């Protein structure tokens, strides 16, 4: 594993992950649900490949981003749930 790390915030918490980690993986490891369903259930990624839309989060203010398709970048602000 490459030791390089990037720092991002997830719901305001500072998180450090290995470079190359997807946003979906980072959110899962932070123990946060990616979204709350229309009836209020906490949801986390299902397909891991951009199909199911369960992993969508707000990244740098842009809502509905598929977090499994995006790589963590230094300073990224992720809001989930």
């Amino acid at each position, binding site marked *: 594993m490459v030791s390089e790390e990037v720092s991002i915030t997830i719901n305001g918490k500072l998180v450090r992950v290995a470079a190359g980690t*997807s946003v979906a*993986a980072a959110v899962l490891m932070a123990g946060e649900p990616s979204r709350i*369903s229309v009836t209020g*259930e906490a949801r986390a990624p299902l*397909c*891991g*490949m951009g199909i199911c839309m*369960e992993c969508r989060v707000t990244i740098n203010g842009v809502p509905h981003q598929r977090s*499994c398709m995006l790589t963590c970048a230094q300073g990224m602000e992720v809001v989930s749930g």
Partner: protein
Amino acid sequence: MSARFDVVVAGAGPGGIAAAVVAAEAGKRVCLLDANSSTGGQIWRGLHTETAHRYPHDAAFAAWIGRLAKSGCTVWAGWQAVDLVSPGRLRIERESESRDIEFERLILATGARERFLPFPGWTLPGVMGAGGAQALVKAGLDARGKRVIVAGSGPLLLAVAANLARAGAIIEGIFEQAPLTGLARLGLHLIAAQPGKLVEGARYRLQTFNTRFRTGSWVTRAEGRGCVERVSIASRGREYAIDCDWLACGFHLVPNLELPRLLGCRIDAGYVTVDSMQQSSVPGVACVGELTGIGGLEKALVEGQIAGCAAAGRESHARALYPQLRRQQNFASRLDRAFALRGELRDLPADGTMVCRCEDITHQALAACNSWRQARLHTRCGMGPCQGRVCGAAAEFLYGWSPADARPPVYPAQVSTLAAAGNAAGSIDR
């Protein structure tokens, strides 16, 4: 440079790469598109030429990526196709940017996704696809020490279990719904026809040899407070529970048919109908790989090469690949038979089990409908952001509904993309 190409290939997995390489090497101006930020598709996800030798399929990956780099093919990664705005003109989007791209020939290599079937508790965090879990781990999710149950159906299960174990997970069991008899028949066929595939399967099994592998067994429910903690398994007339941190569960694969449907390609029994040059019923549009039958890497590579040859007017080169093609097509139909879904899986959802996860539509609400169309109109099933990609295949199996035609945009897109007058040609390659 302009945004006009002789050949556009949608999907940069093995089939798309092979098609693009062959056409580009023959002198065609080719653009290879993929929604992911890197090429390789799901099977070659996360591979790098310098580390490829550690993985199966390594030789093929290194060879094709090397040829792609030298072929002169333009690669646009991170671009999602959203609509065919007019014949020969595809609209694509990346974040908040959109482009139109024109082509003479289009080769669709959009691959497959997992089939998900609903059961009580399948929406709990920690329940993911089998391929889904593998993709997330390849993307950096830490599997070390996680107790994982791998379940569902298909040859992917053994590979996923082996890969997760290598990543540090503790595999609590592998549960395949298909009966042993069908798998044995497939195995016997492979001994003579494609021993390499059998060796691959055996190698995955050896890597997980101390893990129970049960055929004719399936998940009946997942339970937990806030996330999955325990899974119930039905196996040979018994039912028992196993504690776990993750459930990795997918029921074989279904092709990503949205683009072929949008273009009007004829589809029969779940796959795009193609001729011996991989051409669909729509002139100028070829389909390769999982779109024409779930058959995996080798099938995609052969079909991609044939479509690439055809796009470059080299039909005789394509014909030389026919013996391989027939072998791979035969394998695909045998896979479908061996991993056919058992009827008991239709009884898994309870009244309150969500079938449509985007709109939270329950089994009870859907069972009262008589068609996909009625379900959409009455319940909004399939009208959320996944556009029925997950619940559509489930509803087809559970209720026997045939899927609706695809409508643009085939992916949720920005309003600015939909409204774009088409900033095609010269302006694009700034």
